[in-house]
């Protein structure tokens, strides 16, 4: 099939970017979206032009590296997948596809379609952990039974891949879904309760410092999340935050 591409090109963080048009003639429907970009880049290299830089690594939807805005949707038109799992069979011959980086003040563009998401790391560093040293002698793993549905809920929250689609989807560029997923995972588990108060306060403070926007409950994040992280987590984080404030 023939595909028309409109791709954001930007030399570096300080330069101005622009949309550049490309046309690909021999796209196969069982190619992945990123393989389609590989083909474009092979063409560009052959012509001596600089290829389009984009972030990608595992190409199986789990590392969270790929991060493209496709026709205005983070990770493209399909639900519950990352760009690397998107296949060209989701498009038609003659389609025009607009590809941009994830946009947010807290995610500055590094080059072309690559953005800097280290703000997410700093939110995790502010409290996304349980303070336990490696010792070889904590309590036996089965000493504290955890109800299956609670453990499953914690697992659902823990499956966040940190890609940033929630931020890119949100009109306020809010990182509430991302932050609340980690807060929820630990708030649900008995191991995480001990530090719950400090954790939610510190992570929310860092989230605000990074320049992410506020949550106005539009739910776009949940719709676009490739891992289906639920809005319920934001509600849980708000409860945790409130009770932390009450606790002082």
């Amino acid at each position: 099939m023939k595909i028309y591409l409109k791709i954001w090109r930007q030399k570096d963080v300080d330069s101005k970017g622009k949309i550049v048009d490309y046309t690909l003639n021999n796209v196969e429907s069982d190619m992945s979206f990123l393989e389609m970009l590989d083909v474009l880049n092979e063409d560009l290299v052959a012509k001596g032009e600089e290829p389009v830089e984009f972030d990608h690594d595992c190409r199986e939807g789990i590392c969270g590296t790929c991060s493209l805005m496709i026709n205005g949707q983070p990770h493209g038109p399909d639900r519950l997948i990352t760009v690397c799992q998107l296949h060209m069979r989701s498009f038609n011959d003659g389609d025009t596809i607009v590809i941009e980086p994830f946009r947010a003040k807290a995610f500055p563009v590094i080059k072309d379609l690559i953005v800097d998401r280290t703000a997410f790391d700093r939110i995790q560093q502010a409290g996304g952990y349980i303070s336990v040293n490696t010792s070889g002698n904590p309590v036996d793993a089965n000493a504290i039974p955890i109800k299956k549905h609670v453990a499953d809920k914690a697992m659902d929250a823990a499956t966040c891949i940190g890609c940033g689609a929630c931020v890119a989807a949100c009109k306020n560029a809010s990182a509430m879904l991302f932050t609340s997923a980690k807060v929820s995972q630990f708030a649900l588990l008995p191991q995480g309760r001990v530090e719950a108060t400090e954790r939610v306060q510190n992570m929310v403070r860092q989230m605000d410092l990074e320049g992410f926007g506020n949550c106005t409950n539009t739910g776009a994040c949940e719709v676009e999340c490739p891992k289906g992280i639920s809005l319920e987590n934001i509600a849980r984080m708000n409860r945790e935050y409130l009770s932390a404030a009450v606790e002082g």
Partner: protein
Amino acid sequence: MGVLDSKIPSGPLADKWAKHKNEIDLVNPANKRNIDVIVVGTGLAGGSAAATLAELGYNVKTFCYQDSPRRAHSIAAQGGVNAAKNYQGDGDSVYRLFYDTVKGGDYRSREANVYRLAEVSSNIIDQCVAQGVPFAREYGGLLDNRSFGGVLVSRTFYAKGQTGQQLLLGAYAAMNRQIQRGKIKSYTRHEMLDLVLVDGKARGIIARDLVTGEIERHSAHAVVLASGGYGNLFFLSTYAMGANVTAAWKAHKRGAFFANPCFTQIHPTCIPVSGDHQSKLTLMSESLRNDGRIWVPKRLEDAQAIREGKLKPTQLKEEDRDYYLERRYPAFGNLVPRDVASRAAKERCDAGHGVNKTGEAVYLDFEAAIMRYGKEKAFTSGIKDPDKETTRRLGKEIVEAKYGNLFQMYEKIVDQNPYETPMMIYPAVHYTMGGLWVDYNLQTTIPGCYCAGEANFSDHGANRLGASALMQGLADGYFVLPYTIGDYLSDDIRTGAIPTDAPEFEATEKAVREKIEKLMSGKGLHSVDYYHKKLGKIMWNKCGMSRNEKDLKEAIAEIAELRKDFWENVKITGNPDDKNQELEKAGRVADFLELGELFAKDALHRNESCGGHFREEYQTPEGEALRDDKNFKYAAAWEYVGEPKDSKLHKEELTYENIEVKTRSYK
């Protein structure tokens, strides 16, 4: 034994590790503050080592090429992590895990290391649960287990099909806590390009900032390489696109021996190749073999009809199907180890029974499991005589709960619904057992240069069992290396900070810059991917699932030729002082082009079949691997002396005092 000293502690097997820990030197907490350690790679091994070293008080610097430590490829491990907890009461023990691992590795691993691995396996589960890793649980609230290939017990802990992700996020969280404390400085989007030796000791690295292109010097008292495996040598593999051998290979060229490079794991259950544009292969977890049955059509004409789309697999009657693993290996059935399952799939496809367009796929079928679970569920729900549809629906729900994310992944890639029609699978490169040679302390042949996780060669012999990679990565990083490195660092308490303006740093940086310049000055005929794909084809066709002398000799010559061509004609756009993904790839492919040759040389010299290394000349009349313990019961550690083809062989003889060496049988 020559220059290789494995430093295995004396005494009975079960006491070695405890005794060793008691005898090695420690560094006192105040002195640890004056010691720096570099960790390259932030996967399970690197992340857990970095966090633990920082908890102990060392100053740690971590390096990863990804934009965050959380994205290391350990994240993609699906099925689970083994531990000898015996929670199921099915007769598991440290000895049995040790035994299974040595046997699974086809008697080519080091006994003492494997025993220690089995010994600390339980600690891993305790540690991860304490960190908040949400492992799967049963209704009673206790941890659930499942089975993996090559064993007869259920010792695998898991978190849906995302166990690697959850364990890595645990290690990442532990790292984050230390980053927050200022004990770890994390360098992301950085790639190690060389190892710096001062007075024969590893004292730092040269790294490239992948965003600015800047070449940087970083010093430390010791360097830990936890940079993963080298399967991307084959271009198509289940590895992440960026996974590479550069850190380990540079250390190799500076004096670290590279052991058993030809021991590569080809995983039996991956989604088959669909076309020339393909960039990567996707694994379908081995856990699926708990419930999936593998088969091909018995009759060649049925296979052909299926390939041509005239017949559907679901139309084929039970008696017309060949469940070849159950037929050949009744004791282990679909749960034979990976090397055995992969070869059996290749054998059936080579014989003309393959089921996709290219004839290189077999079926993994869940129909029987869906109906079995459905019946169980109907019974426990009190539904009497359920009809077929109800049973299917109930069974499907259970299969979905167990493997839902894998089925979804399959459907997205192949565009077929695996609940309705069997999956098509074929073997693909997945893991490398070979790697930098290390002694019992995980130190390479360069003093102060350590190697952990998949990057080292130590524990899996010629074949790794499922769910043992996560176990080894975390064992090395949490429980082994932080102890053993202290013994070495105890001599460094008075050394003080290592200056980066030493002539050795100067010289190594210069060498790195010259290499980049040379890469950029290629004539510009072909892209980096062109060379990578060519190398991959040579490797897959001549050094893949089965190998022979003629092919291997050809591979050595072809790789050397391709390497020459690469250095003269590679085309790299852009410039080296910017973000430049073509340059990044070029550096990695340059190293693969050297390793590939050593790989083939190693495979050629090993005149036996064992584990993942199958030489066509050495097989039993039934087509099973024929090991030669008399001549090859050793780890082959190669010393770099100029060109890969001239590498010098050193042998570490393997002695088995606690396990009877016998022919591996899963019949």
